[in-house]
């Protein structure tokens, strides 16, 4: 077993673009769930409209910065459409509504009748050339030791993690303000918070829209990185990975989503490399080969999620007292 290779792969993954994107999605979700108590199971839908909003706009020849704005604006609109009728629902029902809405979006965007607009099942490709033209990094490979990245990937990583830092900073400012305090009040007891004169509905809507817009940034980042967006990528499992990320890092903590994402990707990739090696060596018997590494990893993610919720729901940095676990 080549642990050094696994380590290299794991470190690359922990700082790579997907980790940054998951961190962004988790920052948004943390605002909604960690601070406000909204069980948004449809976060991937915000990523989807961000990615498609940008891709479709850019594909029609409009300038890329405008396309980015359209992607974020689409998320704002989705948040309003979704939130206005549904935020009064209790947590479990909000979960079902949001997951259904995200799935409807995916099915619609994928459908044949809309193929001319969204690319149907084939998606949209090569719409972000301009982004790579802005890359100031000279061409070449950069990195430390065996952990290297091309200038192209490094550029996307730079932009991605900068976004993570900026949005985390934004959340940091907000949760320390009276606005953030109201969110935490809503998380604990909506009716008590109403009895102090706070318009609970308005605050929930703001949290949903802001969290969703940050999620849209994640979607845009992923789509730009792959120069491709396609409906089948934006499945509900993504939202659940984002939940795993924030639970690992610590629900309701600003640093949680960032550390959670890096650790998640570190472990996921490291496990993948090790598993691939073990399976290639028939470590688990001859019936399982390297192609099984992928599903085994995801099964482990499921197991880890369960164990986390049962034994350490506050994750790494959360406080047990503040975690949504036991009924009061």
């Amino acid at each position, binding site marked *: 077993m080549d642990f050094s290779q696994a380590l290299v792969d794991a470190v690359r993954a922990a700082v790579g673009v997907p980790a940054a994107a998951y961190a962004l999605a988790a920052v948004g979700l943390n605002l909604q769930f960690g601070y406000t108590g909204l069980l948004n199971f449809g976060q991937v839908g915000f990523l989807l409209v961000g990615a498609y909003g940008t891709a479709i706009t850019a594909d029609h020849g409009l300038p890329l910065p405008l396309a980015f704005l359209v992607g974020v604006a689409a998320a704002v609109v989705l948040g309003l459409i979704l939130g206005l009728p549904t935020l009064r*629902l209790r947590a479990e029902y909000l979960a079902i509504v949001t997951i259904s809405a995200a799935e409807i979006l995916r099915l619609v965007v*994928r459908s044949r009748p809309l193929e001319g607009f969204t690319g149907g099942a084939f998606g949209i490709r090569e719409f972000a050339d301009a982004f790579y033209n802005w890359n100031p990094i000279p061409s070449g490979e950069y990195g430390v030791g065996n952990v290297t990245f091309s200038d192209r990937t490094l550029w996307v990583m730079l932009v991605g993690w900068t976004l993570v830092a900026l949005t985390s900073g934004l959340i940091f400012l907000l949760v320390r303000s009276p606005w953030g305090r109201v969110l935490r009040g809503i998380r604990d007891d909506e009716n008590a918070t109403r009895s102090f004169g706070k318009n609970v509905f308005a605050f929930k809507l703001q949290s949903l829209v802001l969290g969703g817009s940050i999620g849209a940034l994640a979607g845009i980042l992923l789509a730009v990185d792959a120069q491709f967006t396609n409906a089948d990528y934006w499945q509900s499992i993504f939202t659940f990975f984002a939940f795993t990320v924030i639970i690992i890092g610590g629900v309701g903590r600003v640093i949680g989503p960032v550390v959670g994402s890096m650790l998640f990707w570190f472990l996921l990739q490291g496990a993948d490399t090790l598993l691939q090696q073990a399976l290639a060596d028939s470590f688990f018997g001859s019936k399982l080969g390297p192609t099984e590494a992928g599903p085994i990893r995801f099964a*482990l993610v499921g197991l880890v999620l*369960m164990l986390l919720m049962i034994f350490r729901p506050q994750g790494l940095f959360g406080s047990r007292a503040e975690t949504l676990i036991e009924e009061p």
Partner: protein
Amino acid sequence: MGRWVRPRAGATRFVLVLALLVAPALLRTSTAAAQAEGPAITGRLVQNGKPVPGVKITVKRGRTPIGTTTSDATGIWRVPVGAGGTYQVTLDRKTIPKGFKLADADRTTLPSVVVQSEGDKFVLFPFGEAGPSGPSDFEELLNLAVGGIKFGLIVALAAVGLSLVFGTTGLINFAHGELVTFGALIAWYVNASGGDGPGAPLLFAGAVGVVAGGLLGGALDLGLWRPLRRRRTGTIALIVVSIGLALFLRHIYLVIFKGNPRSFEQFATQQPWTLGPLSILPKDAVIIVVSVAVLVTLGLLLQRTKLGTAVRAVTDDPDLAESSGVDVKRIILMVWIVSTALAGLGGVLLGTTEAVQWDMGLRILLVMFAAVILGGLGSSFGAIVGGLVIGVISEVSAFWFPTDYKVAFALLVLILVLLVRPQGILGVRERVG
């Protein structure tokens, strides 16, 4: 779940008889040819019993053309391909003679036809509905509705357990889809022959699947849910645990059974029965009968037996039931076992009409949620009503809208119900907001 309009069964019988008479002559020539030329792709184009001649069919592999042919006077066409592999078969619509029409006008290309290294591969381009002998709107709607009833009953059967578990424990189990898959996979394994499994007949294999499902449910309650309930874990945490469980189970299935869709050995292809305007496959009729029988039995059990009364008591008020002498823990365990057994049965039935694969339960999870929420979470009768309504709406929507949107409609109903009448048609719990 795609549906093409079926030609009337009378015409089908005529074609079958004709084929039986003509086949020996055809077989003689075609097998000889096959042996000489290697494998081929072939088909017969018919509409309502009438052959469709003169249609140009092209076979390609990637960008390389392999061969072209035209359907003959009996509608038969055949293109030798020389070797096994994956091919694209395209039908040239412009060569379709007047009076004939493809059943699905968009489906002129079959993008990945897998051919073995020996033998002919038969592919289908269905034709229909060109002349007055085509099925009427009423017939089409009727058959779609019956399809919807069948699908809805399967969903109801699979989902009633979801409702029962919610009613008695308050848990919305996001892993319920995986329990449906479990029954189907176990049944497939027991049914599979040729080295994959024991090769038992489907009836027996299905029963094993159902029993296995029940056992899994019991194990989950004893090993996972009961300890968590004892700790008074909150509902949100339980939901997240069920999501982790779903992820875990689903990918274990993927590892063990791999990703390719499979089907049961028996009842794979059948000829439909006709009762007037209605055209239904025998296995679909069986599904309907079995589902109704099981659901009615369940209903009677819940209403008429002591056990059923206890279950209803626990659903209404667990504390009150406890103090009235009901062993709530035992009742919950029984509910879990029955629920997952039913889910397993739903999976087995689903596997006769759709592919048996690792994520088949996940694919219908949201539809199951739609059914139980529409009917009212906690009410098993509601699950039946909800399932039927969702099934019919989503299947019948194909009459007006492209089939791409069938599931989306079901989900739209779900969202609307939660917004307008969250307790559903027959709801038990009132607090939704």
